[in-house]
């Protein structure tokens, strides 16, 4: 065992990268759920974003364009979910699960010709002086632009939800859609927009995996990250900064367990591999003392009867 082999600075820097797809998807889903909608199709939207972004980046040579395409693709897929749940009043849990199934199949069809291709690389930003600082340099100033975008998005969502009128309306719709409707808010329209925002974020998260974190395209490559993102939202009790914390924690536990393995710590590996999930449960139990509960209308469909 040689714990000194673990470099905490590099560990933190890489857990930030590991956490970013989770964070992006979770922030999107957080907004969706704040509007009172539970979309379990995150995994499906992520993987479609992953291939749409990958294909666009390969064809155009621009990773940034890839991310834009991924956001659009995720949003487009989420419209399907919106039609089902908001117009056709279908059950949200079942619709979301179906969306995942559909998305996994669709992405595989779209990606048939993109296996074994290397995408254009997205460079890390490099700020003179700052990026070369010891410790804080690699952690704070040495990443790709999307990672910073994720953090900025977290801040923006936090601000909008807390201080803006839009956020107020969104929360009103999520808490009590009948009352919001009575006040004259367009419940369906707001929910549609929220769902699309969630889809776009999930698409970005997927593209982060296929363009930066891995980067390659293979079928089913999101490998369950969309589900973790869903868990993260509840874990965060619908608070953006806690989602960030949760994403780092979750990404961190995985990176730490791999680090411990490489350092030769004599804990059975399968228990290390379980640890992220067990720790999440543990934190959930601790956090559930905090009674800030779910949006009251979460998962319930709205139909304007009057």
């Amino acid at each position, binding site marked *: 065992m040689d714990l000194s082999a673990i470099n905490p600075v*590099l560990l933190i820097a890489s857990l930030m990268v590991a956490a970013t797809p989770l964070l992006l998807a979770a922030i999107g889903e957080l907004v969706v759920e704040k509007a009172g909608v539970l979309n379990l199709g995150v995994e499906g939207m992520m993987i479609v974003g992953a291939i749409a972004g990958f294909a666009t980046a390969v064809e155009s040579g621009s990773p940034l364009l890839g991310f834009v395409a991924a956001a659009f693709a995720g949003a487009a897929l989420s419209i399907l979910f919106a039609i089902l749940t908001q117009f056709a009043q279908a059950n949200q849990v079942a619709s979301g699960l179906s969306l995942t199934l559909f998305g996994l199949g669709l992405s595989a069809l779209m990606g048939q010709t993109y296996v*074994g291709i290397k995408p254009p690389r997205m460079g890390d930003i490099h700020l003179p002086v700052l990026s070369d600082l010891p410790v804080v340099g690699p952690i704070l100033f040495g990443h790709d632009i999307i990672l910073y975008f994720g953090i900025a998005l977290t801040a923006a969502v936090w601000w909008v939800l807390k201080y803006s009128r839009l956020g107020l309306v969104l929360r009103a719709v999520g808490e009590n859609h009948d009352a919001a409707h009575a006040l004259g808010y367009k419940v369906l329209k707001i929910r549609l927009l929220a769902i699309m925002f969630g889809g776009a974020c999930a698409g970005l998260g997927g593209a982060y*995996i296929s363009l930066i974190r891995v980067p390659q395209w293979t079928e089913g490559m999101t*490998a*369950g990250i969309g589900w973790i993102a869903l868990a993260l939202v509840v874990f965060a009790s619908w608070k953006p900064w806690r989602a960030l914390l949760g994403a780092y924690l979750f990404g961190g536990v995985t990176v730490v367990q791999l*680090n411990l393995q*490489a350092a030769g710590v004599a804990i*059975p*590996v399968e228990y290390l591999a379980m640890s992220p999930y067990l720790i999440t449960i543990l934190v959930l139990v601790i956090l559930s003392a905090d009674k800030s509960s779910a949006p009251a209308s979460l998962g319930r469909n709205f139909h304007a009867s009057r």
Partner: protein
Amino acid sequence: MKLTNLLTSAAVALGLAAGAAMADTTKVGFVYVGPVGDGGWTYEHDQGRKAVEAEFGDQVETVYVENVAEGPDAERVMTQMALEGADLIFTTSFGYMDPTINVAKKFPNVKFEHATGYKRADNVSTYSARFYEGRAVQGTIAGHMTESNIVGYIGSYPIPEVIRGINSAYIHAKKVNPDVQFKVVWAFTWFDPAKEADAAKVLIEQGADVILQHTDSTAPQAAAQNAGNVITFGQASDMSEYAPKPRVSSIIDNWAPYYVARTKAVIDGTWESVDTWDGIGAGMVEIGEITDAVPAEVKEAALAIKDSIANGTYHPFTGPLKKQDGSDWLAEGEVADDGTLAGMNFYVEGIEGDIPQ
């Protein structure tokens, strides 16, 4: 055993009907555990299928089903292929072993080929590749190339196949570099590119400058490229998009010659149940081009190992070798028998850490 009779008679009836209709077409089925677009294990098997089609043209018809779960689904898909008149069925995952045997019992006239298993029957052959031979070549290059003397190894699950590869790579790295140390990380998944990327990064951060992988995605290659001064090896497929560096060579699963030969045997009526475990010599394990990122003398040493394995003058597991716990395994000049290799569940002396149990 009513169903068995029913199935057999149906198969016979169909065989007769099909025989009359298209006497010359041999139908070959492939059962895949992953999608053909996985870029690794299943992808290479499908390349083998395509080679069969290219070789025999109209003489054969190939069919495949991808993403078939191990267990009852596999059994159903094989039965279905046999019912539809397949003459030869390749089942390409270890977990298909018992289903293959079950189905083969019901269809004595259909030939089955099961990859990586150990159960055979009159109409069931087994085949596998000696990937550890390729690992010996990789280990040689790794031992020469590492400057930090730390080689990182990403494993999937601790099964004999993977453990064999680690041992073989370690033995040959150690031979050329007595100070070499292996860090093994188990991902505990067959497929999770993001986790593979993390594992590679972790190993690099802990000082590894050579990464060997027993997982199929290119994630570790990309991580190595970002890190700069790290070399890697392609796994399952060539991964030449990462050449000349970080990918300096690769192990390629090349099933095409075997699939073509076995199909030919069925066409000619000479098929027999055999247990094939081929390596570099037979071309089942290919060593991808060694790039110029490797110094010429290292490349020469690697090729020498490869050639001596290919022509049978050298076995990668040749004594004296001890097990990790210090007990004797192979005496001077003794060569490991295939039985021990097939079920290998121990590290050789010098590797640190325990195999998860």
